[in-house]
């Protein structure tokens, strides 16, 4: 990885005050918000790498996202019409119907975004039909299904069956993840991949898109 800028490094070091000071300074000097966000994104990628290598934990990951979110709130009015999210390979993700837990899913979303994916987070308790609608609407090739409760196995299987019934199964790779899942659960559900943790999930997405 190329040398990080001071701003990106401050974010990686989780030094919120320093991040704020550098951002304010850059704005004063007329540097475009988009340039600032790009540097911060480099920092977020490095945070994701550190999480992947067990140097950072969920606490650091969430705190870096918190710093980043505050800066984005600060910068948002300055963006004008620019849409930051118009690039990257697409992933649809959600916690299946009957389960309202989202901590694990949110970590995957953070890491995917850090890695440059365009992520549609469908939230929690998502019925199979809504996944299908979103996949058809966006043409995304990857669907991530998350759960914490083991009762969700049946619903994950239902989602895969619904993809088959609606004729889009062949166009979509399905990844499952969550505390009670494993390779046997993947077989039962009929998914393509099982992600043992958030980092594995991102790797699989990269593999699918040939990144």
């Amino acid at each position: 990885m190329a040398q990080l800028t001071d701003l990106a490094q401050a974010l990686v070091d989780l030094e919120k005050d320093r991040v704020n000071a550098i951002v304010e300074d850059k704005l004063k000097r007329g540097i475009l918000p988009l340039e600032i966000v790009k540097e911060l994104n480099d920092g977020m990628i490095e945070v994701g790498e550190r999480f992947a290598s067990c140097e950072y934990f969920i606490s650091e990951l969430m705190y870096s996202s918190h710093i980043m979110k505050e800066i984005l709130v600060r910068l948002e009015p300055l963006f004008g019409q620019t849409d930051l999210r118009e690039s990257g390979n697409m992933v649809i993700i959600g916690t299946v119907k009957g389960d309202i837990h989202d901590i694990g899913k949110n970590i995957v979303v953070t890491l995917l975004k850090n890695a440059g994916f365009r992520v549609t987070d469908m939230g929690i308790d998502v019925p199979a039909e809504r996944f299908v609608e979103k996949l058809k609407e966006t043409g995304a090739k990857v669907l991530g299904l998350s759960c914490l409760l083991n009762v969700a196995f049946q619903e994950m299987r239902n989602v895969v069956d619904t993809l088959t019934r609606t004729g889009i199964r062949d166009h979509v790779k399905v990844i499952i993840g969550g505390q009670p899942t494993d390779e046997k659960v993947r077989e039962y559900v009929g998914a393509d991949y099982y992600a043992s943790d958030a980092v594995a999930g991102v790797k699989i997405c990269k593999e699918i898109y040939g990144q």
Partner: protein
Amino acid sequence: MQDEIQQLFEERLARYQATIALEPTDRMIVGGTGSNYFAEVYAGYTRQEIMYDINKWMAAESKFAEDFPEIDLLRSGRIWAPIFDSVGFKLYRLPGRDLPKDTDFQFVEGEWMKADEYDLLINNPVEFLIEHRLPRVLGELKERGSARSYMAFLKGGMAYMLMAQVMRERALNLEKKHGLPQPFQGVMLAPFDTLADGYRGLQGIMIDLFERPDKLLEACDALIPDSVSCAIATANPLKQYPIFMPLHRGNHPFLSPKQFDTFYWPSLFKAIMLLIEAGYTVRAYLEGDWTPNWHHWNEFPRGKIICDIDNKADISRAKKEIGNNVCLAGGILDRMFIFGTPEEIRSRVKELCETAGRDGGLILNGGCGIPYSTKPENFRAYVNATLEYGKYSDTLRPKVKKVPPPSVGKIPSPRVITPWEVKLREFGGVMGDETLIKGVWETLEQRAFCWLRFWDW
């Protein structure tokens, strides 16, 4: 008949106590889970029926006890849902109310304490709870001072006592009709989890770790005495059963090892030591994966704790690393109960009985519970195989442990809102036996305070 049931009860209790104490027993515990979700639905009732109708809940447990008479312990459902409705408790979604009637009840993440309220929590927890947190988590209190809010306190208090009665009836039904002890009684959260689950929420606590670490630490310590005294208030008075502790954020990789050692462990260790010194044992669910952190359980006196190992962690490794000091439960993956075969279960039970469970101190279980959608034939296979392979001795007969003597001075005094001395002054002294009046006054005060903490999670 009654004598036989009583004898069966004592045999099972003694076996459980000896297992926790890492002492020799005749055989491995059967069905020694703390959370038998399968038993809730086995009789065919919906999850809503079990949570709302105590008769169906008890009937479901009886049916399970009759069909699986070999099990040594039973505790199915967790909560009598009307208590949540009485005050509009917002931390759960319930089957049949805001979830389909056959869905699990689920916890709702949220921020129920503000970042600038640490000092108040530390210095005046009663004011913090009554004035700030409870109006946020109890929907019925939203119009302060209204008739509806007063009624909510009244209904909530009544429901609290009714639920205690419901729990007593359940336990008595299992003991007197089926000779079944409970896996635990009374509950305590880790101080860090109290803050992380139902106070600051996950997002809030993760920010506090970096932005207000000193306050967070101070709050963890400040929560210890009340957490311990409220756990003891609901624990088994004879100290026969462990106190339950579902532990959440020690789950790797939420916290770095340094954060775990600094923020999570010290206050939990102190709280558990107070319980142990007071003569209790503890059953802790190490939810998720505790592998990098579980070595800390070796710091406790031997044979006082049972740790449930969840699906994500390896029971054999746990046995090697902490199994000489604490009893363990787990080893059978949830998914094996759900869509495995009786042969797979049998072979897993045999393997564990011959390895990690060979010398005792292990209770075979799913990941902190037996799943709702367990196939009955798989549970049957688990029971049969445990009886077949989990035998240690034909002659040993453990005895129920004597009630440990009350410890002196170490148990924190339960908090009261209006101390007796204040009330006595208001009375201007009393004319008869003061102790008669004081005792009940203080008991009600203490119960009322624990009611305030009941809504922690």
